[in-house]
């Protein structure tokens, strides 16, 4: 393959380790290749480089000033020191300066033990407050149902601003004011709840400190659990089983399905259901909606509607696509609605006495449960509280439940009997793959064997392609990261692109990378979670939603058939254009 020009390499020496690295690499990249660790705070390989924190400053031989390793390109024969006396003095001073303008309430901080600033203070042996003085004071914004902003803990690394802008295309946050008073705020300092924020929580994952945190509902859940008159039910989203182990020190990709159910039973939940069941129902409903659209020739594209972040984004920025949205509710709301109707009826429980909790990898789910459309008969909330993966882990730790060492148990019937199709809802491309497994069977009238749709899988931000169902070519796109969605929607609007079916998940990687997950922005970790989800799918005896006997039973006993009037009452919803402040 001579015609592929090999990228030129240059010789660099970092901390006396010499090696060859590709020309144009930054010093930080080169250091990684040579096995040298340089601390960073504002650097995120997914985002543009701002060079704001200066923590990665290193010394280049012959250069009087230090340079930021994240931004500075290597050149041939460059000699770099990452811990010269000058570097160490500067780095330590920078950390001290950050600490001086920080609330210093680590002991009672939610990020205690999981904070990059705290880690740096420990690594650099900070033992005194050298630069104490005035501190910035800004009010906490807890207007949002899911995300709390505490600007006083902000170190102004700017990652939240860039994630929101560059990955999600939402632009909810930016820097305001100058100098010492600089602060990250929503437009015109409106409360976050009134802004364009879609509550995806990607800013929270990127935040190195506790400046952006969960609005926690563990207390509310505990109060319900402690009330003897209340029946506490719970459901767990597919992505939880593949990630919660990380909170307990297990390697990424550990699958904890059975242990998770045991833990929830020990916490005190009366019934432990699986959101995967709701996903199987969603396949039936959304799949048949697609079939109807194919028969009626549109409107296309049809968009998936499982992701509450995407729905809010669409209502804010692209309301013209409302007719294209599947009207089907999300698996969380379906499971919630069925718990308070189908199960309540079946088990003879007063739905008003049910406190229905969902464990979600997602912060936007906390918004979704409060949407006015998500009420049974307009008066009973389908879901009463959402806990994120992190909140559940905190609850388990509080209760002394050590998840890894628990025995396995099954979900409760009937909303615990699930197919592999529902499981893969937790990853990008999974919702569409699950739907196609059913749609293809229905349209072809055959039991198709080849059910793993490879073009839908993988981490690429925009996956496009088509599948043949019989003689029909179904054009699809699978998108994660909403800035990617903007690119596609704009082209659909201009008529440059056409698809039949588009799956959108707001978060990178899908729900496995959701804003409620154990804190990470590392793509490799997300890929391991994705692998765990596919592993569970392959291990399932039933891998198509319509083959799930519990689903068949549900339609026989309660709903009738997909898209039936009863389905429409309980399992379908509608959308309205929204004009938040600062748009």
């Amino acid at each position, binding site marked *: 393959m001579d015609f592929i020009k090999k990228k030129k390499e240059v010789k660099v020496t970092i901390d006396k380790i010499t090696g060859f690295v590709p020309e144009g690499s930054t010093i930080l990249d080169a250091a990684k290749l040579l096995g040298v660790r340089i601390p960073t705070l504002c650097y995120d390989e997914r985002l543009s*480089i*701002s*060079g*704001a*924190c*200066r*923590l990665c*400053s290193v010394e280049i031989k012959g250069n*009087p*000033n*230090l340079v*930021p390793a994240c*931004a*500075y*390109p290597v050149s041939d024969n460059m000699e770099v020191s990452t811990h010269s006396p*000058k570097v160490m*003095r*500067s780095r330590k*001073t*920078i950390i001290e*300066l*950050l600490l*001086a*303008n920080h609330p210093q309430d680590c002991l009672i901080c939610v990020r205690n033990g999981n904070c990059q600033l705290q880690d740096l203070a420990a690594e650099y042996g900070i033992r005194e407050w*050298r*630069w104490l*003085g*005035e501190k910035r004071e800004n009010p906490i914004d807890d207007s949002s149902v899911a995300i709390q902003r505490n600007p006083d803990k902000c*170190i*102004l690394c*700017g990652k939240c601003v860039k994630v929101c802008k560059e990955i999600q295309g939402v632009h909810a946050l*930016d*820097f305001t*004011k*100058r*100098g*010492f*008073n*600089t602060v990250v705020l929503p437009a015109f300092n409106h409360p976050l709840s009134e802004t364009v924020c879609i509550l995806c929580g990607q800013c929270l994952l990127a935040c190195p400190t506790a400046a952006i945190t969960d609005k926690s509902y563990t207390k509310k859940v505990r109060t319900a659990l402690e009330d003897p008159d209340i029946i506490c039910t719970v459901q767990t989203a597919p992505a939880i089983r593949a990630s919660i182990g990380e909170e307990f020190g297990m390697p990424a990709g550990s699958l904890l399905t059975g242990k998770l159910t045991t833990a929830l039973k020990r916490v005190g939940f009366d019934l432990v259901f699986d959101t995967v069941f709701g996903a199987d129902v969603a396949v039936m409903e959304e799949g048949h909606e697609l079939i109807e659209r194919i028969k009626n020739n549109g409107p296309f594209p049809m968009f998936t509607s499982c992701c509450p972040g995407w729905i809010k984004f669409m209502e804010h920025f692209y309301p013209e696509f409302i007719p294209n949205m599947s009207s089907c509710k999300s698996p969380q709301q379906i499971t919630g609605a069925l718990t308070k109707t189908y199960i309540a009826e079946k088990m003879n429980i007063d739905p008003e006495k049910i406190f229905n909790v969902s464990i979600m990898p997602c912060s936007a789910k906390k918004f979704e449960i409060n949407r006015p459309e998500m009420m049974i008969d307009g008066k009973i909330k389908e879901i009463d509280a959402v806990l994120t993966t992190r909140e559940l882990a905190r609850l388990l730790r509080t209760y002394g439940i050590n998840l890894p060492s628990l025995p396995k148990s099954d979900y409760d019937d009937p909303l615990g009997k699930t197919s592999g199709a529902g499981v893969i809802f937790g990853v990008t491309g999974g919702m569409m793959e699950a739907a196609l497994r059913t749609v293809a069977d229905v349209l072809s009238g055959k039991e198709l064997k080849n059910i793993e749709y490879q073009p839908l899988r993988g981490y690429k931000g925009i996956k496009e392609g088509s599948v043949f169902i019989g003689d029909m070519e179904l054009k699809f796109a699978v998108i994660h990261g909403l800035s990617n969605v903007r690119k596609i929607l704009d082209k659909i609007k201009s008529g440059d692109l056409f698809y039949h079916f588009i799956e959108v998940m707001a978060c990178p990687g899908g729900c496995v990378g959701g804003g409620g997950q154990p804190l990470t922005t590392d793509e490799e970790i997300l890929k391991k979670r994705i692998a765990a989800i596919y592993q569970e799918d392959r291990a399932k005896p039933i891998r198509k939603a319509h083959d799930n006997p519990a689903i068949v039973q549900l339609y026989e006993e309660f709903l009738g058939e997909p898209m039936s009037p009863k389905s429409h009452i309980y399992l379908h919803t509608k959308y309205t254009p929204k004009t938040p402040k600062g748009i």
Partner: protein
Amino acid sequence: MSKMVTKCDDKVIKNPKTPCLNFVHYALGLKELQGKEKENADYLLEVYRKRPKEGCTLVYLCKGTSCLSSGEATLKDKFDEILEKENLTGKVQIMETGCRGFCEMGPLVEIFPAKIFYCQVKPEDVERIVKETILEGKIIDDLLFEGLADPDEIPFYKKQVRRVLENSGLIDAENINEAVANNAYKGLQKALELRPEDVINEVKKSGLRGRGGGGFPTGRKWEITRANKSDVKYLICNADEGDPGAFMDRSILESDPHKLIEGMIIAAYAIGANYGYVYVRAEYPLAVQRLTLAIQQAKQAGLLGKNILNSGFDFDLEIVQGAGAFVCGEETALIASIEGKRGMPSVKPPYPAQKGLFGKPTNVNNVETFANVPLILRNGADWFKEVGTENSTGTKIFALTGKVKHTGLVEVPMGITIREIVFDIGGGMPEGKEFKAVQTGGPSGGCIPAEYLDLPIDYESLKGIGAMMGSGGLVVLDNETCMVNFAKFFLTFTQEESCGKCIPCREGTKRMLEILERITKGQGELEDINRLETLATVIKSTSACGLGMSAPNPVLSTLKYFKEEYLAHIEDKKCPAGSCKYFISYHILPTCRGCTLCARVCPVNAISGERKQVHVIDQDKCIKCGQCYEKCPWNCIAKG
């Protein structure tokens, strides 16, 4: 004689927004005129060149921001009124110009062809000027500066070498006809005859370096931008002059905007850009207004736009007004601001020459740099190098302010000493004051103590002693200026103007400022000196942009040259300059006559006492503003 200046075309003077194309092209040698038309144009040229035919007088009124604020407008009305009364309208032509530079002595009036220079002219002087000078040819002594009628003999102008400012104060900045009559666009004509590479070579040969403070060789900068291949390139003029006390760029824009435009067209031609922006502070409304007009006139005259002067080269220019952030003077922040983003510097590399405005190769120079370019092309690199030093060629404009007799705008050859600027041009210290230091480079610069008065000013020498050329602010300090307080002033400015992006600048300057505040309040400790030095070193070596890297300079240089003042504050709890309020108290002496003036001027009612009785200051209420001390007619208030 009556319609003298309107001879060529009525529109020319009545509405200078519409330049007389025939005249402009004739002045540039692009068009032949015949007969009466030629006669009229030649006549006008002579008028604009201040050589009108006998029997005609030109009165130049300085209409710079400074003279305007000291009453130029009423002067103009008064002249019109008197001239009409004396039936001279037409025989005497009133010309309003941009800044003449001798701001301290404004409003300024200059009379041609006699070349008589009057200072601090009041409306009531106008009648005398018309009757005695214009009609009778007599010089009015009491309006002269120290008895000198010829401005070139006035010390303020005598040691100056006015090249960039050659037309400043001598042409109407709002009339392109006057500019072209005085050599505007001659450099451009030369440039367009050369290949772009040769234009760059000429600028390189001249040794011109960035006048915005950095001192980067201009030709080299152009060469780098030219070498970067791209379908689109941009040219930006940095007119975001933010240093406190600096007004060189404003003055050029207000007095000779075509010099900037011409320099930019030449630069654009050299680097291969077809579009340019002038990023100018919104706080410069007059500059914006005159530049807007000049761009419009240049477009109408075919000097901007498509196929400039039939060369096949296209270039257009747009003004963008800044929103008042000092950091936008940093080129990457400036670019972000033009793009509509928050003005925050971005990481370098990539440099603007590689990836600048809208991701395209971009060349950024400041106003004074561009304004030097037409001179180089018009007169040649060798001429340019005739003044200045080996590595700092040409002239530099300084805004001379502070405790000096004659403040104003001065253009001096590089290599001149500070003593010459302060004592010869500036007239030295006001009565009873003693020279202490000058501050150059604004908040990014440093101070130069008396021992360096004879240091020749160039880029390297200033850097060598911990100061910098900067954009050209030159503040003179006397023995009543406390150097700790002075450093604090600049640090307050940089702290407020920090964009807040990088930690050392945002957090570090704040802590330095807090330490300085402590010291000036008598709460300093010896360790504070070390703390200041530690922070200063870290901020200098790790900040993301020039603002942060230079922010500690005022502290470092005052620590270097005036450490004893810091120590006096810390150890002796004294402010040697007597300026830090904390260390001062005011007391009324027993000699007080009880005139009550002090009690009346005190803004916080801290002074009490009966009429004709000795008054008393309530020390708890006193805010140490010094009003009583200044106002007491009997010197009965003691400061200690």
